[in-house]
């Protein structure tokens, strides 16, 4: 066998240039068709805010997860794939309302969120605790013991603390308004600096 019968393999991929603009257009078409066919189980986007870049994820039922950059967005999406569904696409459209209300909140123009929420990532007592949090008004705070009592288990203040620390919908469900009675900041998914920033924002407005 010589070189004429064994030519080097052709560089066909190089002869088929694919641009990022073409891929973006196809991706957006896929996201729209997937949503229309009820195949988009989780849509997500990111949003730049004063507490860093937030990952926002929604099911057809509503906002299901808000994640801080410190949580590692790739890891959060992989967890959503196994906890909810791997049918996940970057599809900002479903999150237009969420992004708008968060923008309004961070610029001091919104005090209450009016969004459909999907609490499927919090069950049992954790969910009971989270359902109490919107009752803490903008700019106010409550103690973990008060929240535990409101959720029906006055002695379960440690569990209430855990529920707040693992809140799948931080900022929107205001676990940052729950602080220990000793005056410290307490645990927060986005870290103490983010919790302080939100409390300062609400105090200043």
């Amino acid at each position, binding site marked *: 066998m010589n070189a004429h019968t064994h030519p080097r393999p*052709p*560089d066909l*991929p190089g*002869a088929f240039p694919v641009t990022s603009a073409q891929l973006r257009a196809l991706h957006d078409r*896929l996201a729209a068709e997937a949503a229309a066919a009820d*195949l988009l189980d989780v849509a997500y986007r990111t949003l730049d805010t004063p507490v860093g870049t937030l990952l926002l994820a929604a099911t057809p039922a509503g906002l299901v997860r808000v994640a801080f950059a410190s949580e590692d967005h790739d890891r959060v999406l992989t967890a959503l794939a*196994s906890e909810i569904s791997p049918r996940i*696409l970057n599809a900002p459209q479903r999150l237009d309302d969420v992004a708008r209300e968060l923008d309004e909140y961070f610029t001091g123009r919104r005090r209450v969120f009016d969004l459909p929420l999907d609490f499927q990532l919090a069950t049992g007592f954790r969910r009971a605790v989270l359902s109490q949090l919107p009752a803490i008004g903008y700019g106010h705070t409550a103690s973990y013991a008060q929240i535990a009592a409101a959720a029906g288990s006055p002695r379960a203040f440690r569990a209430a603390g855990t529920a707040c620390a693992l809140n799948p919908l931080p900022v929107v469900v205001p676990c940052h308004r729950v602080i220990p009675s000793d005056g410290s900041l307490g645990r927060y998914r986005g870290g103490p600096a983010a919790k302080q920033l939100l409390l300062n924002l609400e105090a200043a407005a």
Partner: protein
Amino acid sequence: MTGKPPFEAIVAQHGPMVLRVCRATAGWADADDAWSETFLAALRAYPELPADANVEAWLVTIAHRKAIDVTRAAARRAVPVADLPEDPAADQPDGRDLDLHAALAALPHKQRAAVAYHYLAGLPYRDVAAIIGGSADAARRAASDGIASLRRSYPKTGEL
């Protein structure tokens, strides 16, 4: 189902390869439709895909069927849309090489598929054979015949 990546990662990782395969097998004009239908069908089936499955071979298997579907649908529409301009030698601003596409389109279907799935998708001949039918040796011969034919009919053979 644990550890399966979000579908977004599948699109990001394999979207360009599938688009090249669709352009080579369905033709440039129908490639976008074939790509969209491929990934919509893949999204539908994704939760049931075994975590250790060969994702490239799975996507190309779907793209193979969708390319046939959209090509048939386009033929049924029977509106003669010319894919070739007046001057077929000129490269397009989008980087499309019309001579190469014409040469590929002239290949027998099996050769074109074998060339696309081996050289564009990077599948081994065993996987190519599972998609187009026949043995791995037959797939290797089809790809080899297709490349030989391309080298004869495509003016820029030296560049490939």
